[in-house]
């Protein structure tokens, strides 16, 4: 137990339970759940918990500069470790500021446990100072939430919260704790005594469905694996099994934004990311395949494009741990509701024991077709000797960080898509990005969380100058905790993706997408007490990147790139996968129907 001799061990009550105050229970429960780091911000309604935290050893509290930053840091921590991220914030604005991070975690299935203070129970509903209806506000943006009115429920609820956040399809949870409950004494229960009445996620696959799936795979002429964040969330074993299955079959594989790293980008079966800014070969393979094996992805609109033209000739197998994803956007032929690793294990087992063989001649022909699409080199761009092209900047960042222990986070926009296209991930849990919600400002605090979990690794936020200003204050957090995160800003002066859409869809009327005033990021770095670097010309880029990597302090890197560059290839809104545009020269005029899609 505690080395510091504080009261978290408590006195046994008559029935053998441990008696603690609510605030002590919170800390004790976190310890019993194996929590080592908390991202938080104190305030009136959580003062008793902060008091209990004061002398505790074994838990590091990271003081963020905004509650949104705390939630994204917890997300980065969770995604890079596979462990839940924990957030502690106060009532009212503390809770409402956490809403963006909660929604982000819900959309991307990231396990975070957010503890919020609440006004005392007798004040709830009175419009008290810093009161808000936290459970009401967070109900639609959490997997589950609780308001704990009785201290005797508190430890059970926190243990349940961890269980629900981390099992099944992971997601964010909120435990709202009124201040008087934090002071009251009650009985503490241990995690292993908690059994939830209704919550039982389905983990094991239906074996008949598995056999049908390998039947379809063995008879496929043009098969394709389409994998997503579910493989990452299932854990490293799922990635390992996926690699084995891909090698065993020799099928091509593509992945969503969230699934990058589950299959190594250097392997020949890898077609690159698919979707709106996916590779030509991945999207064409998706359109033309005859058996689509979707593993832990959810047929998101960024992936499918126009749903009625999506992969029209394929039999679709859909593995997901969440039954509500089946037939949500696209009707599938063979649903499998299970955890990815469990299902992959069974697929491999039956494939091997039933001595299944692929249709080798057909597969060879299919690969020949894919090679023809590959020859388009859809990620190629025209480099420049006078101005830094953003694609070139990412290529150099990738080249100069090879062989290093690298984690990448991003903000949202063009830079995010370029990073997804060009940075080649070999391992899962190395890529932290806001996929579902598309939260500008995610990457910097996420990098804080990642670096906290991996103090000796190279953690880089590939950022845009617009996004990064949304949570810029978290640089102070990085400085305070000596987290040497690298904020690599592709500074094109515009909200690049907004500008690109305005060019392609709104007649080049660049309405409010240009930042007339920007901070001097080098001076700003100085003000924060970290290191500022700037690269203006292609010939200085490599040296500056090397300098950034060598510095063992947080860095703001202002990389001045071509403000007019667009992100290609692209499926215009409302178009099919085989109607991609590859450059500004292609006619990407959208249909009226396409214009209304985001």
């Amino acid at each position: 137990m505690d080395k510091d001799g504080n009261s978290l061990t408590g006195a046994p009550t008559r029935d053998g339970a441990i008696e603690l105050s609510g605030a002590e229970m919170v800390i004790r429960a976190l310890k019993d759940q194996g929590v080592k780091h908390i991202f938080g911000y104190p305030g009136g309604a959580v003062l008793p918990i902060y008091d209990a935290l004061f002398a505790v050893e074994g838990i590091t509290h990271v003081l963020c500069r905004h509650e949104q930053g705390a939630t994204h840091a917890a997300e980065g921590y969770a995604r890079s470790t596979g462990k839940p991220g924990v957030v502690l914030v106060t009532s009212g604005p503390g809770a409402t500021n956490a809403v963006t991070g909660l929604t982000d975690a819900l959309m991307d299935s990231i396990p975070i446990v957010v503890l919020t203070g609440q006004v005392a129970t007798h004040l709830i509903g009175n419009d008290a100072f810093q009161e808000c209806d936290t459970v009401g506000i967070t109900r639609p943006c959490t997997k589950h939430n609780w308001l704990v009115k009785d201290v005797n429920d508190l430890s059970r609820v926190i243990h349940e919260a961890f269980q629900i956040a981390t099992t099944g399809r992971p997601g964010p949870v909120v435990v709202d704790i009124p201040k008087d409950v934090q002071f009251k004494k009650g009985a503490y229960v241990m995690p292993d005594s908690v059994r939830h009445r209704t919550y039982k996620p389905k983990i094991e696959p239906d074996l008949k469905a598995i056999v049908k799936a390998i039947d379809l795979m063995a008879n496929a002429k043009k098969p394709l694996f389409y994998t997503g964040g579910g493989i990452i969330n299932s854990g490293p074993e799922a990635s390992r099994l996926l690699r084995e299955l891909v090698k065993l079959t020799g099928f091509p594989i593509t992945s969503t934004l969230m699934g990058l790293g589950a299959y190594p980008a250097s392997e020949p079966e890898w077609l690159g990311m698919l979707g709106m800014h996916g590779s030509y070969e991945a999207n064409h393979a998706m359109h033309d395949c005859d058996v689509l094996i979707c593993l832990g992805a959810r047929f998101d609109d960024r992936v499918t494009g126009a749903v009625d033209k999506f992969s029209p000739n394929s039999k679709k197998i859909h593995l997901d741990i969440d039954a509500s994803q089946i037939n949500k956007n696209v009707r599938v032929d063979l649903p499998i509701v299970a955890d990815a690793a469990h299902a992959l294990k069974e697929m491999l087992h039956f494939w091997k024991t039933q001595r299944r063989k692929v249709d080798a001649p057909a597969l060879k022909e299919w690969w020949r077709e894919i090679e023809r699409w590959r020859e388009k080199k859809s990620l190629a761009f025209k480099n420049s000797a006078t101005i830094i092209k953003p694609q070139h900047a990412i290529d150099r960042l990738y080249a100069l960080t090879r062989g290093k222990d690298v984690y990448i986070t991003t903000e949202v926009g063009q830079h995010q898509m370029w990073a997804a296209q060009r940075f080649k991930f070999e391992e899962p849990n190395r890529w932290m990005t806001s996929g579902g919600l598309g939260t500008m400002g995610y990457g910097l605090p996420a990098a804080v969380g990642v670096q906290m979990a991996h103090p000796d690794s190279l953690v880089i936020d590939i950022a845009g100058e617009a996004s990064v200003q949304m949570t810029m204050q978290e640089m102070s957090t990085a400085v305070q905790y000596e987290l040497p995160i690298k904020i690599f800003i592709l500074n094109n002066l515009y909200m690049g993706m907004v500008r690109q859409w305005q060019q392609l869809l709104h007649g080049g009327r660049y309405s409010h997408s240009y930042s007339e005033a920007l901070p001097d990021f080098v001076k700003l770095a100085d003000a924060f007490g970290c290191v500022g670097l700037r690269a203006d010309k292609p010939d200085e880029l490599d040296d500056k990147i090397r300098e950034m990597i060598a510095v063992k302090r947080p860095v703001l890197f202002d990389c001045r790139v071509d403000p007019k560059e667009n992100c290609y290839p692209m499926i215009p809104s409302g178009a099919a996968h085989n109607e991609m545009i590859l450059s500004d020269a292609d006619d990407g005029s959208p249909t009226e129907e396409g214009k209304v899609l985001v």
Partner: protein
Amino acid sequence: MQQKSPAIERHTIAVLVDNEAGVLARVIGLFSGRGYNIESLTVAEVDHAAHTSRVTIVTSGTPQVIEQIEAQLGRLVAVHRVHNWTTSAPGIEREMALVKVAGSGEKRVEAMRIGEIFRAHVVDTTHTSFIFEITGAPSKIDNFVELMRPLGLVDVSRTGVAAIARGTEAM
């Protein structure tokens, strides 16, 4: 693939939930948040010892939407079971309504006569009004209310649908 013009169907769905604070808000919030319809909603605790409540929802949508509604309900942490009475073996659906009719003379007599045909009970009367209590399938109540309209219909209160399986099986 997507159906071109899928028909809108009406379904009755029962949900067994833990009767904990905010559980009804979770169910209703799911419908409003995802743009589903609620045509009627009935909820009450059905097992006081186990603190479970049964929510019966009449909703409408395409078959794909109905399938999503069932799956999304099943995903809520506080939900024990979800059952669709429209797609499974036929159950019994009943609704109760209180119907107030005001009038005198021939209309009053006619209202009374129709009430008898529908086996409605009169639970309150004055010289110029009746309150009928009527139980039946929602369509029967619809018919009754329509017949009362020209006879001095003043007010209607309906409970929404309760549903249960025929035979020996529980939901």
